[in-house]
C-alpha cells in the first residue's frame, strides 16, 4: 500500500441520526444508522464514484468527508496537506437551487474567496473571475446577470466555477448532472474530467446510475442502506457485477434500444423496506433473488474476490448475466 499517496482515508466510519419514534404515545428517541462501518481509501488524484439508490447514504458519506456531519464512530483522515475546511469543494445536484437568486454571477463565483480568507485585491479578483469563467465556458460579459437567466447546464457551470476558483484539492460532485438535460450532461462531465486531469484533483462523483458514472470514475463503491456492498475498479464492476444488488442496479436501467427492451423480462426488484428495522442478516437479503437462509441470519463482511474487487456477499455472482 502506498499509504502516503492517499488523499482521504475513511476508517470504519458510522454516522447516525436521531429521530423520534413514529408512535405518538412514546417520544422515545431512536437512532438511525445512515452509514455503518464504512472504510475506504481514496488515492490522491483519483476519481471515485459512489453509487446507490435514495437512502443508500451516498450523500451522507460525502457530507461527512466534507465535515458537515460528525461520524458517530470511526475517523476521517486527510493526507497531502489537505485541510478539511479549505481544500474540499462541493457541487450540488440542482444547480439553480444551489445559487443565491439575488446575487450576480460575479458575486456568486467570487464569494467563496472571501469566506476562505483569500480576500484578493480588485485586480486579482477580476483576473481570477475572468480566467475561471473562461475555463468553465461562460461568457465573461455575462458576469452581471443572475442565475435564473441561465439554462440548467450553464448554472451548473457557475457552480463549478464557484467551486474551482478556490483551487481545491478535493472536489465532491453530488449528482451534478442528474437535473440536467440529456443533451448537455456530457458537456458537464467532460468539463469536470478536464479540471480533474489538469489540476490532478481528487474527485468524488456521486450518482444513482452506474452507466454514467463509469465515464468519470476509475474506482467505484456501491452503497445500499448505509453499507458498502461492492468496491473496485469501475470497468471491472460494470462488466462483471459480483454483488446481486449491483447487478440489479445495472440490469434495471432501461436501454435506449427497442429490440433490447422488447426482450426485457421485468424482474421483481422489490422495494426498500424501512431502514430502521435492524436486521441481523444482509441488508439486501429481503430483496435479493439469490438470498439463501444464511443471508437472513448473518451479515456478510467485505471479502476480496479476484484481484481488485471487494464484495459484501456470501455468494458473489460468478459470470456476467446479460441485461
Amino acid at each position, binding site marked *: 500500500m502506498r499509504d502516503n499517496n492517499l488523499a482521504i482515508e475513511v476508517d470504519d466510519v458510522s454516522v447516525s441520526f436521531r429521530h423520534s419514534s413514529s408512535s405518538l404515545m412514546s417520544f422515545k428517541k431512536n437512532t438511525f444508522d445512515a452509514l455503518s462501518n464504512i472504510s475506504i481509501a481514496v488515492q490522491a488524484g483519483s476519481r471515485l464514484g459512489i453509487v446507490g439508490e435514495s437512502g443508500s447514504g451516498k450523500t451522507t458519506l460525502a457530507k461527512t468527508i466534507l465535515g458537515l456531519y460528525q461520524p458517530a464512530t470511526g475517523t476521517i483522515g486527510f493526507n497531502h496537506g489537505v485541510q478539511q475546511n479549505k481544500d474540499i469543494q462541493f457541487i450540488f445536484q440542482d444547480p439553480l437551487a444551489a445559487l443565491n437568486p439575488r446575487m450576480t454571477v460575479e458575486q456568486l463565483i467570487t464569494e467563496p474567496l472571501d469566506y476562505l480568507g483569500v480576500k484578493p485585491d480588485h485586480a486579482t479578483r477580476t483576473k481570477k473571475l475572468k480566467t475561471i469563467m473562461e475555463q468553465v465556458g461562460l461568457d465573461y460579459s455575462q458576469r452581471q446577470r443572475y442565475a435564473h437567466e441561465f439554462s440548467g447546464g450553464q448554472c451548473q457551470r457557475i457552480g463549478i466555477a464557484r467551486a474551482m476558483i478556490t483551487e481545491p484539492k478535493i472536489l465532491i460532485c453530488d449528482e451534478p448532472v442528474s437535473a440536467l438535460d*440529456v443533451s448537455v450532461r456530457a458537456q458537464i462531465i467532460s468539463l469536470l474530467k478536464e479540471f480533474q486531469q489538469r489540476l490532478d484533483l481528487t474527485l468524488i462523483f456521486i450518482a*444513482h446510475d452506474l452507466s454514467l458514472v463509469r465515464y468519470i470514475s476509475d474506482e467505484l463503491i456501491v452503497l445500499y442502506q448505509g453499507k458498502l456492498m461492492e468496491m473496485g475498479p469501475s470497468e471491472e464492476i460494470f462488466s462483471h457485477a459480483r454483488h446481486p444488488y449491483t447487478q440489479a442496479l445495472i440490469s434495471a436501467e432501461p436501454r*435506449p*434500444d427497442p429490440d433490447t427492451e422488447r426482450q426485457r423480462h*421485468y424482474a421483481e426488484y422489490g422495494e426498500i423496506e424501512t431502514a430502521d428495522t435492524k436486521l441481523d442478516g444482509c441488508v439486501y437479503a429481503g430483496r435479493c433473488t439469490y438470498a439463501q437462509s444464511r443471508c437472513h441470519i448473518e451479515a456478510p463482511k467485505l471479502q476480496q474476490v479476484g484481484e481488485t474487487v471487494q464484495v459484501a456477499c456470501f455468494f458473489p455472482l460468478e459470470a456476467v448475466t446479460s441485461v
Partner: protein
Amino acid sequence: MSALLEANNISIDFATESGVVHAVRDANIELFEGEVLGVVGESGSGKTQLMLGMLKLLPENAVTTGEVIYSDKDLLTLNKLDINRIRSNEIAMIFQDPMSSLNPYLKVSRQLTETLILNQKIDKQTALKQAIEILEKVRIPDAARRVHDYPYQFSGGMRQRIMIAMALLRKPKVLIADEPTTALDVTVQAEILALLKSLRDEFALSIILITHDMSIVAGQCDRVVIMYAGQPVEMASLDELFYAPKHPYTQGLLAAAKSQSGLTDKLVSIPGHPPVNTGIQLGCAFYPRCEQRLDVCQRDMPVMTGSNTQQQACHLYER
C-alpha cells in the same frame, strides 16, 4: 383510422413580466386507440405545457389556441363543468412527483373514495371497497389495511402506484403520464413501468407518456413525438425513430442517450444549450446547435413532411 384524441395547431403563450413566452408553437399530435404515444423533449420543450393546455389545466396567464378533438367535441371550447367531467371520467393524468400530488393531510382512503362518492353517488362503504380493489390492481400489498394509511407512510414507488390507482378509478380511456418514474430509483422505476404495461392491457388504455428519457420510450411506446422549443420536430413509429431517425435533433438525442447507457465508448452531447422561447422565431429553432444546418434553416421555418409513419420538420428532407 381516426384518432381518439387529436390536437390541431395548438399554440400556448404565457404573458410574463419579461414578455410573452411561446411555450408551444403550432403543435399537432394525435393519439390512436390502444397505443402508447411517447412525447419526448428536454426541459422547456413544451411537452408538459402542451398536455396541460389540452386539458385546460394551465394558469390564467396562459393563452391556448387551436383545437383538441375528443369524441367529436373540442375540449378547448367546453365550459368548466363539461371539461371537469372529461377530466374525471375520460382523460386522467398522473404527474412526476407523487408526494406533491397527494394531499399529505388526508388518508389514502379519503383521497381515493372522494371522486367515487362525488361522481357515482355511491355510499362510503361501496366506494371504499372499490378503492381497495383498485389498490390491489396496482399491486399494493395488504391493500385493505394500507388504504387507511397517510401518503407519507408509503415509499416513493408505492405513492406512484396510489396515483396510478387514483387515475384509473373512474376507468378512463386515456391516461396522460407526465414523467411518472423520474423521481424514482431505477429498480422501482422498472416495476412501475412493468405495471403500466400490464394495466394498459387490462384497462384498454390509450396512453400518452411524457418523458425526457429515450430508454423509457424504447421499452414503452408504440409511436413517438420528439419536441424541441415548443414544436414537434419528428413523429415516427418506435422502430423508425430509433433505427432510422431523421431530424438532426433526434439523432443527437439518441446518440447522447446511447452513450449515457454505456453503449458507446465516448460520452456524447449536443453542443450548445436549449433556446429560450421568447420573441419571434424565423427559422428552425435547432439551427444554432445543428451540425447539418443549411442556409435556408436560418430563414424559413421547416414544416412537417414525410411518410405515413414518419414525419419530420427539417429542410434536409424537403424536396
